[in-house]
């Protein structure tokens, strides 16, 4: 029998809905659930499939191969010393994390409501659990990227990764990408429970893809539009930060990185705030 001396405390303070930080701090008590729910969401993706996680390979690589085959022959898309495949893989790593994170994220509460209905947990914990699949994809792209770097190193005797302080920007940009996903998913997952219109968010994501320098370098944008692109779209700064950390080259400056970080953190906090208030209402609609 388990020890009787453990004391568990349940409190629902009246001030809780007004304090985002105390709400976020509740996540400390729910790591096990986040991990179990995250694993469940990954397994759920491949349940009842013949090939299982092999689809990860197909979904991740095939679209990228298509883009690589076409765009590396477009002269404007050339990226100097950095081979185009590396440029594309690095961009696609961040993009896939955000794209998949948002597409899966808005379904998270719906998928996990069986669990949420019987185990009290802050809704934001479910949103964090929804990051599991994007993290799997992100890891897959990281392995792909390292493989490509190693291949170029062996065949061309050029080591393209920048192993210096700039490397710090890599984890920072990944964390920012995940925060962006959490911020957006926290809002959309609640709305999705009521209005399934969110399901059609995919077309907006296609637009976002083309507004972000994933497949093309930032330099190809016309000067007048470039500033708008850089500051209005936080993903521009995040992608460029990621590439800067990896290869030491970037089309954007530190001010763009800062703007991206500021807007991403704002979106994240807004999402958490929205989920925090929604938690009081979810009992009514779940």
């Amino acid at each position, binding site marked *: 029998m388990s020890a*009787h001396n453990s004391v568990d405390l349940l409190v629902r303070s009246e001030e*809780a809905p007004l304090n985002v930080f105390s709400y976020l701090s509740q996540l400390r008590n729910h790591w096990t659930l986040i991990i179990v729910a995250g694993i469940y969401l990954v397994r759920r993706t491949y349940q009842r499939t013949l090939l299982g996680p092999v689809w990860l390979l197909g979904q991740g690589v095939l679209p990228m191969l298509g883009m690589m085959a076409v765009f590396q022959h477009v002269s404007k898309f050339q990226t100097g010393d950095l081979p185009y495949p590396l440029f594309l893989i690095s961009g696609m790593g961040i993009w896939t994390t955000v794209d998949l994170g948002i597409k899966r994220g808005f379904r998270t509460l*719906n998928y996990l409501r069986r*669990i949420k209905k019987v*185990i009290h947990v802050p809704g934001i914990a479910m949103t964090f659990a929804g990051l599991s699949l994007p993290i799997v994809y992100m890891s897959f792209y990281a392995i792909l990227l390292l493989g490509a770097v190693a291949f170029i190193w062996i065949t061309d005797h050029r080591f393209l990764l920048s192993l210096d302080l700039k490397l710090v920007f890599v984890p920072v940009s990944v964390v920012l990408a995940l925060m962006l996903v959490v911020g957006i998913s926290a809002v959309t997952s609640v709305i999705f429970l009521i209005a399934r219109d969110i399901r059609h968010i995919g077309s907006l994501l296609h637009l976002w893809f083309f507004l972000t320098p994933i497949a093309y370098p930032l330099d190809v944008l016309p000067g007048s539009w470039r500033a708008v692109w850089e500051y209005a779209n936080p993903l521009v700064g995040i992608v460029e930060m990621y590439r800067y950390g990896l290869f030491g080259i970037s089309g954007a400056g530190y001010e763009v990185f800062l703007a991206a970080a500021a807007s991403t953190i704002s979106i994240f906090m807004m999402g958490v705030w929205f989920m925090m208030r*929604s938690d009081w209402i979810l009992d009514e609609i779940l």
Partner: protein
Amino acid sequence: MEAGNWMNSLGPVLPEADVRRPEAGSVSGPTPSHPSALANAVANDVAIEVRNVSYWRGAASHLRKQRQSEATNQLLELGRSRNDVLDHLLEFGSMFLNVRSLAQGEISGQRLERTLNEVSVQIPRGSVVCVVDIGGLSRTALMRIVAKVIPPKSGEVILRGKVVSLEQAEAIPMPYRTIRYNLLSLGRLLGLQRNEVLAALPSMEAFTGSAEFFDMPVRRVPKSKKFDIAQSLVCSGAFDVIVAQEIRKGANEAWFRFLDEAPGRGKTLLISSSRLLNDALDHSTHALLLQEGRLLDFGSTAVMRARHAQFVDAATHASIHVAEEEIPLDDDQDDE
């Protein structure tokens, strides 16, 4: 192992003389706010301490009647007549904007009806408590709060040891996986280590009397058998506090034996039933009576039955609270 012998796998039963069944006391003195202070403040023989717990619900239905403003009213009317989704979104929006007052238990200056109203009680360890109310709303709320299924809207609950409810044990997250696989996942969600679940499995198989179901995908297992498995999990798992909202007709015999022997093992149970309330009372050591959201009385079952015979009779014959609808398997099959 035969079904009747499953208890033996849990260890020796304490002699009756060793079973502690203290009477409940009332909460007094200042409420400490830090967990360690609470640990010291709660007596060792108290398994569950409920402190000033209130719960309210039904804000959505309340809003439907009250409406927030003329503008919202018009929008709701517009939405209601044309689009259900818009209607729901507007209701959600109204509640969202009023979360501050919702958290205080009121909307537009009107107090929401309390399902639980400032309930405080200490439940001794090793007691089987039958929760009785008329209609079932208050007991459902209290039992779900104790089981950590829902949080109290105000107040706090202090639990000694691990808690589980039958409702939680019935939640199977992955219908296409085997029962055994689901139990390992569920065990982790309920705070059990993997080896604790594995250690409990033989005893669970004996409890249900049908080990073959444990290796079948959940969706192929009959519903009644799933309930047996849920019962076996709460009985055989390393839980100290067990909440069973509904003692069902046709419940496994081993379950009733567990109810009778649990106090000897230091396990604390909260039980109730809509249809079999008398049976639940028969198997309980204590009764907790709730009337209109407030604690009416708490003590040994015999005393409570004698002291509140009329109330218990009314609760036994009251209309049954309709259980919430089961969540469909998934209404969002398309993935991308």
